[in-house]
């Protein structure tokens, strides 16, 4: 695992998202109403829409392009849609958001990650 300091939690608006520029593509970092954070590859499993630009509600985000609703924990499409985008381990300590995107290079997901990387077809 390689945790990177991303930004203070307050830099992400509640029920909003920020984009993290990673060498392997954009990662969307979401903040739920209760201050939990989630990180997903910023690509909708449908047609690659930028999930960071969607509306966040509960533990989900609605893609801005065609309204697929993606689960923030797992990156899986919900409802009748199916497909998954990669979820990255992320955590907050002392108001600082930490992200591990080593998984984005294609390494096997780390079982010790706080957030399950539950993708069936990762990436």
């Amino acid at each position, binding site marked *: 695992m390689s945790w990177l300091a*991303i930004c203070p939690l307050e830099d992400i608006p509640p029920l909003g998202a920020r*984009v*993290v*520029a990673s060498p392997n593509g954009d990662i969307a970092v979401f903040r739920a109403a209760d201050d939990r954070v989630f990180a997903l590859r910023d690509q909708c499993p449908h047609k690659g829409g930028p999930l960071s*630009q969607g*509306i*966040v509600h509960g533990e989900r985000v609605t893609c801005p392009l065609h309204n697929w609703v993606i689960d923030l924990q797992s990156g899986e499409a919900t*409802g*009748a849609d199916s497909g998954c985008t990669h979820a990255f381990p992320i955590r907050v300590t002392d108001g600082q958001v930490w*992200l591990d995107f080593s998984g984005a290079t294609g390494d096997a997901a780390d079982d010790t990650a706080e957030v399950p990387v539950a993708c069936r077809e990762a990436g």
Partner: protein
Amino acid sequence: MDTANDKPRLVLIGNGMAGMRTVEELLKLTPDMYDITVFGAEPWGNYNRIMLSPVLASEKTVDEIMLNDDAWYAERGITLHKGRRIERIDRVNRRVIAEDGTEAPYDRLLLATGSDPVMIPVPGHELEGVVAFRDIHDVDAMLAASRAHQHAVVIGGGLLGLEAANGLMRQGMEVTVVHLMDHLMERQLDAEAAGMLRGSLEERGMRFRMAHQTEAILGEDRVTGVRFTDGSEVEADLVVMAVGIRPNTALAESAGLHCERGVVVNDTMQTYDPSIYAVGECVQHRGATYGLVAPLWEQAKVCANHLAEYGIGRYEGSMTSTKLKVTGIDLFSAGDFTGDETTEDLVFKDAARGVYKRLVLKDNRIQGAVLYGDTLDGSWYFQLMRDGTPVADIRENLLFGQAHIGDSGHGDEASRVAAMPDNAEICGCNGVCKGEIVQAISEHKLFTLEDVRAHTKASNSCGSCTGLVESLLATTLGGDYSDAPAKKPVCACTDHSHDEVRAAITRDGLKTMDAVFEALDWKTPNGCHVCRPALNYYLLAAWPKDYQDDAQSRFINERAHGNIQKDGTYSVVPRIWGGVTTPAELRAIAEVAERYQVPTVKFTGGQRIDLLGVKKADLPAMWRDLGDAGFVSGHAYGKALRTVKTCVGSEWCRFGTQDSTGLGIQLERMSWGSWTPHKFKMAVSGCPRNCAEATIKDLGVVCVDSGYELHVGGNGGVKVRATDFLCKVETEAEVLEYAGAFMQFYREDARYLERTAPWIERVGLTRVKERLVDDAENRAALYARFLESQEVAQVDPWAERAAGHAAHEFIPITPVDAPPRQGVSA
């Protein structure tokens, strides 16, 4: 009897359509709140009773009409007691006891015992061969009789009787229908339609004995005939009684529950014992009983909501419509068509084509409808009736159908969808074709839009195909489908409709989103992408000066003040007042386009310049540069005033009667920045040649010699609609007042995402005229409210962001110790 866990126990008596629907709705809301036990007198899982007619006609098999089999109950941990009739409810000890002694305790009890067929107690009614038409057992008996015998008599010329007669005829029997009245289906049809129906059934070989009363059923062991009060007789080996149904209240009555014609329930489907609920044909609600499924489903939803302890949602009664399920006969009836001095009749008859339509109007609204031969518009009339839409404005064309009302070229959805081939794509977002949807509906026995969404994904994304999917449901299910209830909740987070939410916001002074969630018992902690933008708009429209706009409840276009494109880039449209620009402005736009390497520069349909393919991170800087050159946002991304299109008018054109360009600029200066339920477009044409295409805009002005004609409710989008003429005014000042007042009325009255065209069709042009044209005081008040909210609305969002507001929205985070970034897009 003790259960392993402490869940409350829910017992359902009656494994039929209404009861199980309630259980299904309940499971959707809270899958494991209750320990559920179901008792059914019939020996199988629950099935689609209304499909018994097609089973009798050999159009379907019994297997095809099963809704939930044993495995379904088992998977959900529901205990099903098939073939066990409950004999007694012990309210004191809260338990039910079945005929065979099986007992079950309950915390909540749900009664859904349906109804019993009425058997006329004439001599002989207990003979073998005399049956009702209610359940699988009856259908089996009829099918068996049809194999061994020839002559059938159906007593009762109503919906059920005719469907039974048709089925028996399809099995090769000779069928005589006996009816007490001299016209068929007198509760649903007027004499004219009934006569036409009888004619076509006779053509198929059905025989009738009208105005005949049965005196006795003849025979020793098995029936041999029927004798009437006039002494005449007819031969019969099978007699089907289909003279009506009676709510099955015996059990409830014996338990001391208050019953009249049915088990009396309140608006939350509770009986007089608060722990006992009742739904379906056995209940009586506000004096009415129902014998069709659509109302039962509304009841089921409300009941489930209360069982789940959400405690919101009330059942307020239903209007019903019926269709006859006899293949090849199109018949539709809805509402009350008896008529009196206070009602008017609109009648259309074309005997040669076999078409008859009658609408009964009261106070300019449809009160009843009877259609025979051509029922395409049935669901539309029904919708108008349930919504109470005033029809004065469309009266001339009403009988010719929806295709003839303000809708150029596309035809209505029902006929469009019927004409589509199976491989036509219905849902563009998810690539679902008509064939797939139709197959799913029949295979998985889907009744509702939600079901179709879950099974096919159609209409699950942007929702623009929802109307088509509803039409497909209607055409595929025929008589079984009687659209969604009139009252549609905003989304799955609530049971309240748009109108109810809006009313609560102003009535209860709710000024924040959380206050709305709290006051109206939202089911989700922070709503969803459907309700939040709507609430944000309603709050903003109600409290323009107090409400704090919520960026996270805006769709990305409005949050980032540009249109998101399919590749995640944005497009930028600067405002160009009235479409008039200068060389200097054009030069500034050109320079900005080059500076930010804009790949495409395009003129829009509204006479503005669109800069497409801009990276999000570049937006604030680009806006600063445009702002320096004097531009503000064109709001091309918003549910807001978009553009005011103009022609050159009297300043240049040889036909121009007024300064259309100047007036367009004034209108745009007055109204820019205002948020509306959906996008809002205007145009001003200098003469009736209408070069600015003002008659397909939300508000169009056509200048004439003596003043200005005002037109409203036009749309050039998916469904083209020409405007309705509102009125004529004489001065520019009046144009501004009317335009502001019209926008304000629309802002305060329409539902979110409802454009002016469907809004006007829903509420009626007359209502708009009453408020705006006839009532000068109200017009002035609306205009004043509009101007007041504009005081705070006309802030250029681009300038704010160029100055650093909401910078986080545009600037990606680069992790402190990350390797340098490759690639560009933000």
